[in-house]
């Protein structure tokens, strides 16, 4: 199967300095791909490039065979920004209703999105009065409301309690099972093991890609934190 997302030689400059130095990445369709790396490694910039919100200096990003950000992709790619980007002065239902309308889907889709993020009972509540975790889930629901083929999520599980994180990861895999392609960023290594495929990012470069198991095998370690450190050492060795 051809990749759902293909990134080749992607370079991005922000504020006068290069923050992505030639990224290559393939994302398989119907999978959950984790973009792991410390804060400042370029995860958000890479995700923004995939949704077509980022001005890129060089290289190419293609999504479902089209250049990233192409008008035909706008209804097929869902994006959750790192900060919850919903309207604080609207209720949960009004927020989702608006995103549903601009994405041309009908009312039942809103109920389905509410169910997906487990927010039943909170529909009438003003977003401003939601907790941080609820707000993050509302923002996620807004990205899922039209059941896009590609879902790009920037740190969707930050600040959520473990039970909820568990259930969201289950949701991600359910979506992938239905053929959705998900790209999820995180700086928490223990989430890496929940992904089908991983790309480890550091200082604007891809350190390694592969399944969690293959990365452990490749580095001869038994947890992904250690694998990441081993890969950083290896990269530093190469640089010498």
């Amino acid at each position, binding site marked *: 199967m051809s990749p759902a997302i293909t990134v080749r030689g992607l370079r991005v400059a922000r504020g006068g300095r290069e923050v992505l130095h030639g990224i290559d990445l393939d994302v398989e369709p119907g999978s959950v791909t984790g973009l792991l790396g410390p804060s400042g490694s370029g995860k958000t910039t890479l995700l923004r490039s995939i949704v077509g*919100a*980022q001005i890129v200096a060089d290289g190419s990003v293609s999504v479902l065979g089209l250049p990233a950000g192409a008008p035909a992709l706008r*209804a097929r790619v869902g994006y959750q*920004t790192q900060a919850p980007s919903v*309207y*604080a002065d*609207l*209720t949960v239902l009004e927020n989702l209703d608006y995103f549903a*309308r601009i994405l041309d889907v009908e009312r039942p889709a809103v109920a389905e999105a509410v169910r997906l993020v487990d927010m039943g009972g909170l529909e009438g509540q003003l977003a401003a009065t939601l907790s941080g975790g609820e707000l993050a889930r509302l923002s996620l629901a807004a990205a899922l409301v039209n059941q896009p083929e590609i879902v790009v999520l920037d740190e969707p599980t930050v600040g959520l309690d473990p039970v909820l994180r568990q259930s969201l990861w289950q949701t991600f895999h359910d979506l992938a099972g239905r053929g959705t392609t998900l790209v999820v960023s995180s700086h928490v290594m223990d989430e890496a093991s929940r992904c089908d495929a991983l790309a480890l990012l550091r200082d604007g470069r891809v350190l390694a890609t592969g399944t969690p198991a293959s990365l452990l095998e490749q580095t001869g370690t038994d947890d992904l934190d250690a694998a990441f450190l081993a890969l950083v050492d290896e990269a530093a060795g190469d640089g010498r």
Partner: protein
Amino acid sequence: MSVRRTRATALRVLRQLRHDPRTVALLLIVPCVLQILVHALFTDRPNVFQTLGVPLLGLFPFVAMFIVTSITMLRERVSGTLERLLTTPLGRGDLLVGYGIAFALVAAVQAALVSALSFGLLGLDAGHAVVAVVALAIANAVLGMSLGLFASAFARTEFQAVQFMPAFVLPQILLCGLIVPREEMAWWLRAISAVLPLTYAYDALARLASSAPLGARFWADVLVVLGVTLLALVLGAGTLRRRTP
């Protein structure tokens, strides 16, 4: 442009306002209170109120919508909702026209209320139809909205956006002819006022207030107001970028 998405945006903006009754109350009550103050200020000189009343009525919505829009649009930029919207099929025109429709409706209610008060209770007379005054007030509101939208692109914080009100709006009010007739201004002041859109909005309102025939100049004024609105909307749309650095 899509009718469905434009309508959805207008509805969303109105729903946001509905959850903020205090802002709605301020938008509707403050102009009425100001009009009552102006009326009381000139009880002994009713002809002054007759001269000021109609232009003020038409300028309130301009000021109010300028502030409301510049802050609202700045919030969309800062909160990330704008970035999200611009990754969806929503067109920039859908967003701007949606805002325009919502705020024009609010301006219509505002102008109708101040008109009912001024013409009904305060004894204001307009030389021409009251409906024309209300229509012009709505046009001015949309002008204020489009300028506010454009201005918001240059503000990074709400503090800055609020300061745009005195920076963009006060000079226009000072120079539009309301305080000193334009013919009595120094040549360079008159030259500046000639490039400020509010000058034309004021002139049109002043012509509606007087009983003299409207003349071609009135329609030229209206065209300038509509033209500047369109220009500011196009420039404002240019500041909404799908791709950002």
